[in-house]
């Protein structure tokens, strides 16, 4: 698990996430990658802000838009890159690809290609903590779209009734594919669903890392002290298309531009400058470093061998 106690680390991690997904976008554009991927660009403050509230032993579940969660958690960049390239050294030995990167042993319980698909899994991890008397927490990331799915209701209710140490982090990035939150819901903020379950709920500016961190810390604190789950809504935005193939017909350029003015990385960098943590303009060189790290990860991964085709028949059963 990534150690995020340092404020510069937080910024660097956001930069890594962005550089990673911008690289992936580029690789799709040039036809190097197959399958599909979903980019976290714009939402970096959510994963990093939440992760900063966690401690060794805590676990997370991700989504189809999962690279950000994985990088924030501290997964190895080269093994992530290798997985996207379908290599044997990838996290899933090339079997999972973008939507299934996981490091179960470390506590990253997997991205998930099914919207809402990991909500039960996160509750199960929280159940295990509770049953074993451990004071760890499980964080479940999901999008606004998942709030529309049945399992949202089932798992929030279970977690509420059993006071499970789970934090439901809804990344409200304004769209579920082409469906805007305006068209997908008749009521906002989404965190107001929480009261109906008898749990805590809060909506925060998901472009503001410190806000996310503060709210997540409070939620983690509640969970650790046996007060049960929280529904934490982080209002954010995805800059890029839903997935590698998206003509963005359902939103305007202006809207995207407008949101980009609230960029979580720039905001946080500016803040660190103000705080004196960062020297003026230093963030640009940090950004270059992040990009280099990503380039290196992909370059190294690209040297790795393809898996043996016959390995496709393995790992069905333990």
């Amino acid at each position, binding site marked *: 698990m990534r150690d995020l106690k340092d404020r510069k680390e937080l910024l660097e991690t956001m930069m890594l996430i962005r550089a990673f997904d911008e690289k992936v976008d580029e690789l799709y554009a040039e036809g190097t990658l197959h399958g599909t991927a979903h980019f976290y660009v714009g939402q970096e403050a959510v994963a990093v802000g939440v992760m900063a509230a966690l401690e060794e032993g805590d676990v997370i579940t991700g989504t189809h838009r999962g690279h950000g969660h994985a990088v924030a958690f501290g997964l190895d960049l080269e093994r992530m890159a290798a997985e996207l390239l379908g290599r044997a050294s990838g996290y899933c030995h090339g079997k999972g690809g973008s939507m299934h990167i996981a490091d179960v042993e470390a506590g990253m319980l997997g991205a998930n290609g099914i919207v809402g698909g990991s909500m039960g899994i996160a509750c199960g991890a929280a159940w295990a903590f509770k049953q074993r008397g451990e004071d760890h927490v499980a964080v479940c990331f999901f999008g606004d779209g998942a709030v529309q799915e049945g399992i949202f209701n089932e798992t929030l209710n279970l977690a509420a009734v059993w006071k499970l140490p789970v934090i439901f982090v809804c990344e409200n990035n304004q769209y579920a*594919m*082409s469906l805007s939150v305006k*068209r997908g819901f008749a009521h906002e903020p989404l965190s107001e669903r929480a009261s109906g379950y008898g749990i805590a709920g809060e909506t925060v500016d998901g472009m503001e890392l410190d806000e996310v961190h503060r709210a997540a810390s409070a939620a983690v604190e509640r969970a650790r002290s046996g007060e049960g789950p929280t529904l934490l809504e982080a209002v954010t935005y995805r800059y890029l298309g839903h997935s590698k193939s998206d003509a963005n017909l359902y939103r305007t350029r202006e809207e995207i531009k407008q949101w980009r003015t609230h960029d979580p990385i720039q905001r946080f960098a500016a803040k660190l400058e103000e705080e004196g943590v960062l020297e003026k303009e230093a963030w640009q060189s940090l950004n270059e470093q992040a990009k280099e790290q990503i380039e290196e990860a992909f370059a190294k991964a690209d040297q790795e061998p393809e898996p043996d085709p016959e390995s*496709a*028949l393995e790992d069905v059963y333990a």
Partner: protein
Amino acid sequence: MPNGVPNGVREITYREAVREAMVEAMREDAEVFLMGEDVGVYGGAFGVSRGMVEEFGEGRVVDTPLAEAGFVGLGIGAALMGMRPIVEIQFSDFITHAMDQLVNQAAKLRYMFGGKARVPLVVRTPGGAGTGAAAQHSQSLEAWFIHVPGLKVVMPSTPYDAKGMLLAALDDPNPVIFYEHKLLYNRKGDVPEKAYRVPLGEARVSREGEDITLVGAGLVHRFALEAAEALSDEGVEAEVLDLRTLSPMDHEAVLRSVEKTGKLVVVEEDVKTAGWGAEVVSRVVESESFYALDRAPARVAGADTPIPYNKNLEAFIRPTPEKVVEAAHKLLDSRAGVYA
């Protein structure tokens, strides 16, 4: 002829054929509507409904929240009231969310109500692998639904059948699961402009031959055809059947062919164990045609694994024309048995 097309037949893609059927049905009948995730301005995940919301409006080409059980249920209720809903499940893998609605409701309401209800619902969904989308976006689960009385299951392999069978499905008073294949969407074929119906429940002999019967459906029916061409170069003339409808299954057509050739290979994309091919094989060997078989029949199917991400891994576990040829060779080379 409109656009000067002879007999109104043009070459269009499978995608366009599906769309054309929907558009024609919606123009004809105000009670037909299309509902699903991103079917509106996005045009559907695979572009099938592109342009439709512009013609029919958001009231009839309906973007839904992510709620597969909910909106399939809604489709059932609307169908019960006499409407003709087309519900799209964005990837057939997500049909797992709607199993109760499809299996316990749509399929059974009529029977449970003693025949006094109809559920003319069409569920369209793209199935199949080959796109590198990995295990949760690549499945072929159609065998589940042929195990559910009350549902019909169709899986056309050509643009012509796609259009004609979708229109037939919309006429049908029963719930129909309509399987499309992502890798078929760009395939082209001759399709009449006017509306026409291809009856559900009838297989099609897509190639005649005397030596061996290959039965396929959907994308892999094309693999069977390709294999047949390769075999023909070796002097083996395969008869190829396109099942088209998996339920009700036209096993009579299979029996007729097997009576002639005495040899059967079923080509299916789904996981081999308990796939629909097992039902084809079973219906053949349970019938009198068993005695016409002079070789053990064979299935060429997906491996008993989830679908892996890596291209080569994925190719390794999927059926291919080559694997069909290989199975045919193996079958032809094996010892013959002729009943006394």
